């Protein structure tokens, strides 16, 4: 059954979209990542214009983050103070990101930049996950357990404007979360992802937050950044397709709930290897699209409104 997407100005099979949303939601429920970094390129692969895929995905991220953060809040795993500081950086970053998005679109380079960012980040994250998960499988076989500190103190923690974050048990410079939030905001606007897959490692390794509160706090701040991106994309680029977002969200929340229930019963590190492989495959397909000789080297774009 075809459904007409009014902003993308094309028709797609509603069941294909629901299946995509459910599948990616399932993975996100299993692995605790937002899933946007898989869904957006998949949408582009089935023909949704990249600009629409990115902006719409931000809208879908709002819905999935809200449903996630409520669960974490109930378990008291959200550091609101840290969330707000990240948020200030995130707002500035995402505003800059959307402006950059519009500029690149006018220059005709937005598809290229989105493609490149995806190839680089998917490649990096896929490779890191692959190494990490293979490593943990090997470690389990060899039963070697290295003792670890709660967190390392590095020069970054000596910066001024120190602030106390009670829930995260941290006393660090407010500049750190501000800068982290800023960069995640830019990436979020350009790639249409929540940015959890960058934010979560940054919170653990750069800020030194305890893993318990990381996911809830990152989801909390992502709601606002993604809402900001949705709003700005709507105003500046008119590329948010609410029909597409609705269909994807319905599939996504169902999939996420199933995923989070299934994951408890499976060997986690082996599934992480599979996810890493999937991430790498998506990255490779997108990389191929960039280097393969296009059917036509000319493309046209309307400038301004019809007269």
């Amino acid at each position, binding site marked *: 059954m*075809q*459904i*007409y997407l*009014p*902003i993308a*100005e094309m*028709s797609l099979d509603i069941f294909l979209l629901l299946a995509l949303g459910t599948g990616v939601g399932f993975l996100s429920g299993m692995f605790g990542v937002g899933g946007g970094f898989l869904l957006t390129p998949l949408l582009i692969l089935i023909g949704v214009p990249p600009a629409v895929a990115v902006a719409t995905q931000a*809208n*879908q991220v*709002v*819905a*999935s*983050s*809200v*449903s996630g953060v*409520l*669960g974490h809040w109930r378990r008291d795993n959200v550091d609101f103070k840290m969330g707000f500081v990240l948020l200030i950086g995130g707002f500035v970053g995402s505003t800059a990101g959307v402006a950059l998005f519009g500029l690149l679109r006018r220059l*005709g*380079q937005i598809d*290229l930049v989105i493609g*490149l960012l995806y190839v680089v980040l998917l490649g990096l994250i896929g490779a890191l996950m692959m190494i990490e998960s293979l490593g943990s499988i090997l470690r389990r076989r060899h039963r070697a357990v290295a003792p670890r500190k709660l967190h390392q103190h590095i020069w970054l923690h000596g910066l001024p404007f120190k602030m106390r974050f009670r829930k995260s048990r941290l006393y660090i410079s407010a500049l750190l979360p501000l800068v982290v939030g800023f960069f995640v905001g830019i990436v979020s606007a350009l790639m249409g992802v929540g940015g959890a897959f960058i934010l979560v490692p940054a919170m653990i390794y750069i800020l030194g937050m305890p893993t318990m509160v990381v996911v809830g706090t990152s989801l909390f701040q992502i*709601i606002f950044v993604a*809402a900001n991106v*949705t*709003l*700005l*994309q*709507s*105003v500046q680029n*008119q590329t*948010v397709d*609410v*029909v597409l*977002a*609705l269909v994807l*969200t*319905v599939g996504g*929340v169902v999939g996420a*709930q199933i995923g989070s229930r299934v994951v408890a019963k499976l060997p986690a590190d082996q599934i992480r290897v599979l996810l890493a492989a999937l991430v790498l495959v998506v990255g490779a397909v997108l990389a191929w699209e*960039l*280097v*393969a*000789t*296009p059917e*036509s*080297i*000319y*493309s*046209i*774009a*309307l*400038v*301004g*409104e*019809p*007269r």
Partner: protein
Amino acid sequence: MTGRDRPLPYRTVALLLIALFALAGSQGRPALAAPLIADLSNHLIAITTGFAGTDVLMFGATDGPGDIIVTVRGPLTDVSVRRKERVAGIWVNRDSLTFGLVPSFYAVASSRPVEELLTPELLQRQQVGESNLALIRPEAKPTKVEEFRQALLRVKEEQGLYSPTLGKVSFLGNQLFRTELRFPSNVPIGSYLVEVMLIRDGKLVSAQTTPLVISKTGVGAEIFQFAHTQSLAYGISAVLAALLLGWFAYLIFRKI
């Protein structure tokens, strides 16, 4: 709801009326006040959710023998043509030129090959044929402008919005004519101009312009309109809808 669904009654009635007209004329003096009268079976094409392209019938009568050329021009826009080049192994948009007054849709139909009917100068003045479209050319090297102009026409043809072949105008007797105008599913919305020209002995005897409107209707059209005219309100609604949806999802699944 397209021309395809119900062209027959329109067509029959229209043709009958014209036939009567012409018959009445042929018995006495010419009945047609003007040398050329033409109309469309449909002046509004509605693009709905299931739109798959449509045909519109153009029909008319002349006051005597002659040839007919019909051109269809969509709304005019500025169009950027971009050329990809390989940079460090990756295909990147490099050069771009912008042409003005480009019809978003263009088609020609005629009763004989147009070159046999009019001189090249007249064809150009009347904008008959893709190569005679009066585009505003950008300022650049003429060979480059020409290369990009050709590419523009080629991409438009690939999109099915320009038609490289000539449509057929057929005559019934020597006064009544008709032709089917084909509009594909991706036809751009806006106001179209259908121009009919009567040619006799290499001269343009008469011309008539008929408007045709193509517009979206239904929920999709309203959403598109909302997003483009009140984009702030649209963005706020999109965010609120997502917040509510996320909250509902949490409530539903907390119970399960």
